[in-house]
């Protein structure tokens, strides 16, 4: 047993302080206001303090910490992206993640499981090869593997998909692919941000943003007005709500993404298995539950309601891949809201409104970017210029018709 647990056994009182200070009042003015107390917003607050010495920061969260996308995703971390811009960015995120438990002194259960993206057609295998080639060039551990290898790593998988689906031709294998405790990432960043001086205000909703002469001057909240010249929107599914306050249009549309979890089982699945053709990604959590997610819902909706269609098709596809599962019970289904972009790359950085910064367009890939988005957005706020890693993701790319085609990967597969 690690010695760090001994203090709990031998102490009369629970020897742990609050993870962050309880601040009852909003100050009249902050150097920066971060809207959204999820992983991204809290990470930005942390790096503002740590990297840039900016501590007069408020994080405003309308609900509770990590209650949005952070707490609803399937907690997968990987960097096997298609575009060099994307792969480089996510690789930086993976590198931060790998040391994050130590840095934040909080066990995030960052667990490297190995990530398979299954290809059910030669066309899909071509796309996976494209990703593998880009990845290898950037030093990312990623390769195309073939059915024998997949079967040897995942003995329970049925490569024929029971004849219900096109058989598996191969996969992109990304050994560093990991899962983590998503809630813990938010909590640990909250604690870290607090130690650098940021204030975290839960149950505080932004009602409007004051803009004068094209520049942000303050934020209205349901607890009063605060002055600030820098506002970061890190609200994922609520981004369109916030951008409306400053009169900004974006390509973002919000779609629900659903997931579900089974009863805990003894460990049997070590890897993360993704099939784009079957719209499935599944891994087994440290608690033993199978956590499975799908593709986006078929239409836009700013709501986290569940559908039976999702549960039915997800279950079918899980059984196509793992025919031993029919009797395993599903405990719960849920949904999160994803802010989708046309090119499947995020929208980050400066905007036409001075002092208003966007950290958005996270679609279905936001969790894995948490550390790097926090770090690069903190840089961008502190220096009022886009960090090199996110230059390609600026909102202005759309009016220039210069998209960053992560979607290219998705489309070549058909």
């Amino acid at each position, binding site marked *: 047993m690690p010695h760090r647990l001994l203090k709990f056994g031998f102490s009369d009182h629970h020897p742990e302080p609050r993870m962050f200070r309880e601040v009852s009042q909003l100050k009249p003015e902050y150097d920066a206001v971060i809207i959204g107390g999820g992983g991204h917003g809290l990470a930005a607050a942390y790096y503002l303090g740590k990297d840039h010495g900016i501590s007069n920061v408020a994080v405003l969260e309308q*609900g509770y910490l990590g209650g949005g996308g952070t707490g609803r995703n399937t907690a997968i971390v990987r960097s096997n992206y298609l575009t060099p811009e994307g792969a480089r960015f996510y690789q930086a995120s993976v590198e931060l993640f790998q040391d994050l438990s130590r840095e934040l002194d909080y066990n995030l259960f960052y667990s490297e499981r190995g990530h398979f993206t299954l290809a059910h*057609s030669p066309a899909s295998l071509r796309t996976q090869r494209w990703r593998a080639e880009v990845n290898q060039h950037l030093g990312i551990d990623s390769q195309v593997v073939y059915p024998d290898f997949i079967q040897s790593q995942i003995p329970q998988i049925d490569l024929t998909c029971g004849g219900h689906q096109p058989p598996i031709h191969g996969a992109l294998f990304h050994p560093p692919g990991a899962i983590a405790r998503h809630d813990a990432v938010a909590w640990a960043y909250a604690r870290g941000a607090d130690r650098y001086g940021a204030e975290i205000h839960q149950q505080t909703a932004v009602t409007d943003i004051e803009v004068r002469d094209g520049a942000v001057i303050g934020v209205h909240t349901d607890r009063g007005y605060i002055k600030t010249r820098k506002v970061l929107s890190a609200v994922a599914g609520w981004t369109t709500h916030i951008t409306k306050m400053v009169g900004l249009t974006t390509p973002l549309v919000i779609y629900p993404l659903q997931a579900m979890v089974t009863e805990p089982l*003894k460990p049997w699945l070590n890897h993360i298995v993704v099939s784009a053709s079957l719209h499935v990604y599944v891994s087994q959590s*440290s608690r033993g539950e199978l956590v499975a997610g799908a593709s986006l819902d078929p239409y836009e909706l700013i709501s986290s309601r569940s559908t039976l269609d999702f549960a039915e098709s997800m279950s079918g596809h899980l059984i196509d891949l793992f025919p*031993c599962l*029919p*009797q395993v019970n599903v405990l*719960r289904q849920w949904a999160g809201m994803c802010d989708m972009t046309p090119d499947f790359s995020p929208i980050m950085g400066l905007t036409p409104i001075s002092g208003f910064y966007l950290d958005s367009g996270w679609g279905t890939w936001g969790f894995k970017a948490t550390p790097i988005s926090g770090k690069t957005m903190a840089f961008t706020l502190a220096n009022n210029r886009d960090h090199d890693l996110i230059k390609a993701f600026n909102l202005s790319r759309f009016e220039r018709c210069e998209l960053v085609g992560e979607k290219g990967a998705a489309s070549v597969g058909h």
Partner: protein
Amino acid sequence: MTSRLPPQPGEWIDREQPLDFQFEGVSYQGYTGDVLSSALWANGVHVLGRSFKYHRPRGIYSLANHDANALVSVGSRTNLRADCLPLEAGLQASAVNTLGSASRDYLAIMDRFSRFLPVGFYYKAFHTPRRLFPFYEKQMRKVAGLGKIDPQYREGPTGKQYDFCDLLIVGAGPAGLSAAVDAGERGLRVILVDENPHPGGSFTWQWQRNAEAQERYKKLLDRLHALENIDLRPGTIAGGVYSDYWVALFDQHRLTKLRASAVLIASGCFEQPAVFQNNDAPGIMLGSAAQRLIHRYAVQPFTRGVILGANSDAYRLASDLAANGIDVTALCDLRPEGEPSTAHAQVEATGIPVYRGFTIYQAETRRRGKQLAGVIACPLDRKGEPQPQAGLTLPCDGVAVSVGWAPDGGLLYQAGARFQYKTEVEQFVPNSLPAGLFAAGRVNGIFSWPDQCRDGLRAAREAAVYLGQPGVTELDSVTHQGPSPSHPYPIFSHPGKHNFVDFDEDIHLADFKNAHQEGYDNIELVKRFTTVGMGPSQGKLSNMNAIRILARHNRATIQATGTTTSRPFQHPVPLGHLAGRRFHPLRRTPLDAWHRQAGGQMAHAGSWLRPEYYGPADQRDQSILSEANQVRQTVGLIDVSTLGKLQITGPDAAEFLERIYTGRFHKQPTERLRYGLACDETGTVLEDGVIARLADDHFYVTATSGGSGAFYRELLRWRQIFQLNVQISNLTGQLAAINLAGPESRNVLKDLTSIDVAGDAFPYLGVRRGTVAGVAATLMRVGFVGELGYEIHVPASSALHVWEVLADAGRPFGLKPFGVETQRLLRLEKGHLIVGHDTDALTHPAEADLNWAIAKNKPFFVGSRSLEILQQRPLTRQLVGFRLADADVTPFPKECHLIFDGDTIVGRVTSIARYSTLKHPLGMAFVQPRLASPGSQLHIRTAPGKSVVGEVCSLPFYDPENLRQQ
């Protein structure tokens, strides 16, 4: 030892049908109608399972289908709840998650370490040094998890069912039955579901000794059975309520998807635990569980028991136990004022001592926690704090807890109801229901059976009005009378911990205090940090107490503290039921059987199955090359029925095509083909195909196999937006298409068709209608594969006939069928791109060298404005052809290998062929424009540290003068 009672009125077991079964390898006997829990309890087995974290022995607690500590495996099935697992002859069950057995679990040592494993302990350790975490995680994963899956397990597909009704009623207790009968007698089609195998709800356990109640129960059943329009479905779980009252019903065999016009929830309440030390010991159970044991299964819950109560239910329970020969040592009532109703006097009359303002402070066990020895009861002070110094020791082998209820409101929440906490009943009660949703009975805060029946009637009437029934007399709402059925805080701290709030997850009271101290002070944060409510019973026994505890820590009201979001499913449901029999539409061309017989290697192509080539799989390259050579030298035949085939007719047809495609069509002569390229609004290449003009107002258009469905859909939308007079028909499935290609194709065809196929009469890019092999056909002179060729479109029903006639006629010329892979090679030699293969989701025409297909000075087509912008910009990549000197180079480049200039990515291979009829490997690639001119060297990386050099060539590789297809 057996605890089976003499026959009970209405018992669910069939004593005529005894059954033998095994638990943990030991044989026992029970009855048909038992569940595993009841049968084991009847046999004196009180340790049914072990807890998740500390491996503490656990017995029956709720017996209400959510005893998550009594999970068993039976054969390949696991995580089965013993309290709703029907007993079957020969059943062999064993507890999950033990090292040893339920009665001797070596992992029980975890309990000793519990003080070192505080709430969230796993966040606080094991992560430094980093290299050790994988080891720790492996150990933790091993001890986490419940049942084991059987990797060999297989089962056939489970059917699903659809159903419809006017009114779905969930819960067949007093309220649900009353509502069903009232609605049924009005003629509404009612489906009444109950998760238990028999209807009746609390009639079958709480009111068994109340003659009036039993009379009502019998009458309700009689009226119900007399109505054909009431469909009673016991053993059925309403798993979730979705949009527009789409409800998932699960029974033992299948999922039924029900569309209800209205839904009435009479699902009742979950009786709630009290929190005191060792409140999880086997023998401690809910009062309702004790009564279910007695009345449903005729099993004595214990012989000598203490009741911990806080409502009138506890007093009725005491009388009930006493009447069944159980020695009730004491009734401890948490309320200082005790019970005001006559139930109190009845209990006193039986001689059961009643301690007002008392709680159970701790339970004492023996045999390592496996057997209850007694309890220490003590008075509560005015703040409700226990005063253990004044404690009494009460020996007993059982405790029945009856301190309050929490609504089974999940379905109501999912359907959009809002709840309010009412102190009159110390319970969340629905206070706002969307149209068409109704609640009645205990879930609605109504506790006596006559009131529940009345509340059911009231709700049924409201539903009838909602459903448009005439002449409905509406009833006033029913309110709870008398003291609250639930105690506001049945939770007692103890320095020794082990006072469990969540049995699924082994979370005790101090964990909440500690979590709160660390700042997890919102109900959702508490849930996520402590994992309360996240176990297999999803908080049915813990969420309410967790809210009460948090409210107290936050010094807030319960209303302000709120609840966690309710999500499907109501109970755990098997993946197999949800999956059902899976339908995966697969499209086969009319020639599918012919291809198979001819040795075609069938492969998925989008939703279609197509032959890649003909011949054995181990001779793939040879077969493809031989088919290709046949086409080049004599003639070949390919099934291209998967092509999209659209007919565009009407006076505005040409105008419509002008707006959709980048080219010009107004002046296209009839009986002529033109290439069609379509972009989307952002200027990205979307589709291509040929456009045949059959008449002034009649075009026939082909589209790609994969994209034609979506393209057709978009055409319909543009038609509406343009408001043009055109008709668009998708003939893809109606027509088959066969491409006869090769220098001898004219000779093969000429005697089979009514059309004059002489070169002048039917030139390249011509289209003709006539007959082929006696079948009406449209013929197009296309050159996709670069040879003289005829694409023959015929009705799908005649395709086989035409194909066979062509194949016969071609035999003297050496005709061979060829597959899709061969076609890909031939078109590659000809330098034709395939949209979606050589292009991606961001390719615009200039990049793919398709600018020739864009008409100049055309005022508008879809994507034209975006292309204007894109065309002003320097190109960043261009699609080019390249060749390799040597087919034997290894590793040979593959599609999507990258092209490098030093350390910079400068391109990507999109198509490649190792063997071609040109005797050298060739391919297409996207490269930076500076590398696009013929002769440029392309360094293709084929493996780490290895590359192959290709040379850019002008396209097409084959027949650059395009003479052969003329």
